[in-house]
C-alpha cells in the first residue's frame, strides 16, 4: 500500500518536497484502539437518521489524503457517525470530538448518504489536547441527484496534538457539496479533500481558512476532479503564517476527458507575518478536455502598507489595523460557519494568535 499521504496527483521536482506529506508527520505506530466502537448518540434533526453500517459503495469513495489514511481510519474507527439524509434541510448535525487525558487518540469515521433531493448540514468540531494526541477523521459523502451537502469542519486542537482530516465526496447529477474548513490548532494538521464531480451539473465549493504560528506544520491536498459535463468547482483558501510555522497547500483542478463545459476556479491568498515562516503553494490544473474553463491564482505577501496607513490615518492603532485586515481576509470563510458562537470562538482564537505574534515579534 502506498503510504504517501496528501500526494500530488502529478508529481514535480522531488527537491521541492511537495509531492507528498513527509513520513515524519504520520501518526506514530502504536496501538490505537480504546475500547468499543461508539456510534454517534447526539440529537438528529428531522429528515436525518443514522445508518447501522456504511454502504459498500460509500466506503469505497476515495478521500484526499489517500488510501493509507483511509485504511488507518477504517481499520479501527472508534467513533462513527453514518448519516442518512432523505428530506429537506432541518437543523445541522453537530458532532464534537474532544481529545483529553483519558481519550488522547480518536479515529472517527463519518459518512453522509444524501438521497436524491435531500439537504443536510454537518458541523464537525474537533477540540481538546493531549500529550501525543491524535485525532484522525475520514468523511465520505455520497451526494446523490440534486442533493445538497454542507460540511463545516472546525479544528481547534491544542499544541500537543496532531490532526488528520480527510474528506471524499462523490457528487451526482445536479448535486452540490460545500466544504468549509477552519484549521487553527494542532502541532501538525493535515487535511485532504477529493471531490469527484461525477454527475452532470454537479457543483463543489470549498472554503478554507488557516492560521499557523510557532512551529506548527500544516499540509493540505485538495482535489476537484471533474468527470461529468457542466460541473463546477470553486476552491478558495485564505491563510496566515506566523512564527516558524510552515505550510504546504496542494490544490488541483482536474478536468477529465468528457467533462465538457465544466468550470473550475481556485485561489489562495497567504499573509506571511514573520521572517521565519515558510509557505509552499502548488496550484495545479490538469486538463484532458477541450471545452472547459479553468483558472487558478495565488498571491503571497505581506500587509499592504497603503492599507495599514489608511486605517491608521482613520484613528486605528497599528495593531487594530492589522487585526482588521486579517479578519477581513478570513471573513468570506467565517461567514459560512454556523452557529454564531462557534464563529466568534474562531475569531477570538485568531485575535489571540495575532496578539501573541505581536508580543513575540
Amino acid at each position, binding site marked *: 500500500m502506498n503510504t504517501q499521504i496528501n500526494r500530488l496527483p*502529478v*508529481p*514535480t*521536482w*522531488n527537491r*521541492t518536497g*511537495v*509531492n507528498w506529506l513527509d513520513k515524519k508527520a504520520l501518526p506514530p505506530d502504536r496501538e490505537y484502539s480504546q475500547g468499543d466502537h461508539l456510534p454517534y448518540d447526539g440529537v438528529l434533526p428531522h429528515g436525518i437518521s443514522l445508518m447501522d453500517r456504511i454502504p459498500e459503495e460509500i466506503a469505497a469513495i476515495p478521500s484526499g489524503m489517500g488510501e493509507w489514511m483511509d485504511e488507518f481510519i477504517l481499520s479501527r474507527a472508534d467513533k462513527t457517525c453514518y448519516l442518512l439524509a432523505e428530506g429537506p434541510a432541518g437543523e445541522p448535525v453537530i458532532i464534537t470530538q474532544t481529545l483529553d487525558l483519558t481519550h488522547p487518540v480518536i479515529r472517527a469515521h463519518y459518512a453522509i448518504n444524501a438521497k436524491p433531493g435531500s439537504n443536510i448540514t454537518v458541523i464537525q468540531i474537533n477540540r481538546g489536547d493531549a500529550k501525543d494526541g491524535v485525532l484522525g477523521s475520514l468523511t465520505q459523502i455520497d451526494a446523490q441527484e440534486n442533493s445538497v451537502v454542507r460540511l463545516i469542519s472546525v479544528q481547534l486542537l491544542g499544541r500537543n496534538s496532531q490532526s488528520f482530516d480527510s474528506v471524499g465526496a462523490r457528487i451526482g447529477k445536479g448535486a452540490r457539496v460545500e466544504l468549509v474548513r477552519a484549521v487553527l490548532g494542532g502541532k501538525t494538521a493535515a487535511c485532504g479533500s477529493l471531490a469527484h464531480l461525477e454527475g452532470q451539473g454537479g457543483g463543489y465549493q470549498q472554503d478554507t481558512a488557516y492560521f499557523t504560528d510557532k512551529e506548527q506544520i500544516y499540509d493540505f491536498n485538495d482535489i476537484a476532479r471533474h468527470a461529468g459535463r457542466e460541473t463546477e468547482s470553486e476552491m478558495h483558501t485564505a491563510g496566515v503564517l506566523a512564527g516558524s510555522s510552515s505550510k504546504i497547500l496542494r490544490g488541483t483542478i482536474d478536468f477529465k*476527458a*468528457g467533462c*465538457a463545459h465544466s468550470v473550475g476556479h481556485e485561489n489562495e491568498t*497567504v499573509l*506571511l*507575518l*514573520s*521572517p*521565519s*515562516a*515558510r*509557505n*509552499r*503553494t*502548488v*496550484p*495545479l*490544473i*490538469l*486538463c*484532458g*478536455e*477541450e*471545452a*472547459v*474553463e*479553468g*483558472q*487558478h*491564482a*495565488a*498571491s*503571497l*505577501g*505581506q500587509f499592504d502598507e497603503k492599507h495599514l496607513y489608511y486605517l491608521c490615518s482613520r484613528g486605528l492603532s497599528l495593531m487594530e489595523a492589522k487585526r482588521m485586515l486579517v479578519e477581513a481576509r478570513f471573513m468570506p470563510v467565517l461567514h459560512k460557519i454556523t452557529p454564531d458562537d462557534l464563529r466568534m470562538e474562531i475569531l477570538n482564537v485568531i485575535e489571540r494568535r495575532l496578539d501573541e505574534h505581536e508580543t513575540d515579534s
Partner: protein
Amino acid sequence: MKDFKQEKTRVDQADRTIYDVKDRLDPAFLTDSGITAEIVNQISKEKNEPEWMRLFRLKSLNTYKEIPLPSWGPSLDELNMDQIVTYVRPKSTMKAKWSDVPDDIKQTFERLGIPKAEQKSLAGVGAQYDSEVVYHNVRAEVASKGVVYTDIESALTGPYSEMIRKHFMKLVPPSDHKFAALHGAVWSGGSFVYVPAGVTVDIPLQSYFRLNAPGAGQFEHTLIIVEEGAYLHFIEGCSAPRYYVANLHAGCVELYVGKNARLRYSTIENWSKNMYNLNTKRASVEEGGTVEWISGSFGSHISYLYPMSILKGKKARMEFTGITFAGEGQNLDTGAKVLHAAPDTTSHISTKSISRDGGNSTFRSLVTVTENAKGSKSAVSCESLMLDSISRSDTIPVMDISCNQADIGHEAKIGRISESAIFYLMSRGLSEDDARALIVGGFAEPIAKELPLEYAVEMNNLIHLEMKGSIG
C-alpha cells in the same frame, strides 16, 4: 448567439520540408553507441583536451551512472542510451568562411537561411553540425570591442582557458541531474562568448545546431559571460531531420550576467519529433543585472526544459517569455525556475501553450524566495489553449516562499476564447472571424514580438495560424 461548437480553430502543422532533408551520413569518425569510460576517453582524445577535462568527463560518467532517471515528467523508458551514438565528427574542421565549409554541410545551413541571416542582421554566427562546430565567425567591428565569440573547445586551450575552467559546469554541476552528468561526460561543441565591461553588442550573435546523424546525440555547451554594464542578445536555433530511431539532445547553457549587465537569450527549438530534448539552462545574475529568456518550443518528441535564473545580486531581474506548441506524438514539459536570493529582485514569467492532435503540454515552474530576499517581487502567468479533447495541457507551478517581505503572484488559465471578448470586438465593427483571428493571433504574439524576426529564421515558418469559427 451562434452555436460555436461546430467549427474549430485549426492550427496547421508547421511545414517541415526544409528541416527534414537528410544529408548522406558520411562522418569522419563516430564512437560506438552507448556510454562507457572507453568512449569518453575516445572523445577526449579526439579533441586533444587538457587532462583536467578528461578527468572531469570520467567523474561525470560515474555520477551519471549513480543518479536515477527522474520520477516525474514524461516517461523516458523508451530512451535507450545503449543505442545512442554520443559523438559524430563530420568531415570538416571549423571554418571562418562559408565558402570553405564542405558543400553538403554548407547547403544544409543555406537551406536553413543561416548564412543569409548572418549577412543581413547578425554580429556573428556559430554553426554546429552533429558533434562539432563547422563554422564560426564574428564581425570585425564586434571583435574590435573585445567581444570574444568562439567555439568553446578552442577557448579551452587558448587565452581564455582559465576563464573557461573557472566557469565550466559550475552553474550546472554534473550532480544536478542525470542528464547534466551525461553532458559532463560526453559534451562536444558549443560556443563561448565574452563581452567586456561596458560593451554593447548592438546586433545579436547566433548559434545554430543541426543534428543530421540518426540515433545520435548532441551535447553542445554554451558559456556566456557578460561583464558589468554590458549588453548582448544571443540567439540559438536547432533542428534535425526526422528519423524512426531516437535522437538525444542534452545540451547545457551557462550564463553569467554581471553587475548592471543585460543578456537576452532567445531560443527557437525545432527538433524533429524523434528527439529527446533534455536540455539544461541556467543563469546567474549579479546586482542590477537582467536576464531575459525568450523561448519557443515547437519540436521534439519529449522535452524537459526549464531555464533557471539565480538572482544573487540586489535588484537583479529575470524576464521569461515562452511559447510551446505540442502536436501529435509530442510530450513537451517546459517552464522556468527562478531563485530570489537577494533583496529587491524581480522576476516575471509569462508563458503560452497550445496543444492539439493528441499533443501533451506541461507547464512546470518553481519560484523560490529565500529569507533574505526582502522587497522581492515575482509574477507568473500561464495561459493554455487546447484545441481538441485528445490532447492534454497540465500546469504544475510551485511557489516556495520564506520571506515575509516579498510579494508573489501567480495565475494560470485554460480554456476557450471569452465570448464577451468576441462580442466586444464585434461591437467595434469586426466580423466574428476577424475577432477570433485577432484574439488567437494575440495569444501567440508575445513571443513573436520579442524575437527579431529577421534573425530568428524559423519563427515565421513555424507560427501559422488559420482561424475558422470558434476555438473549442
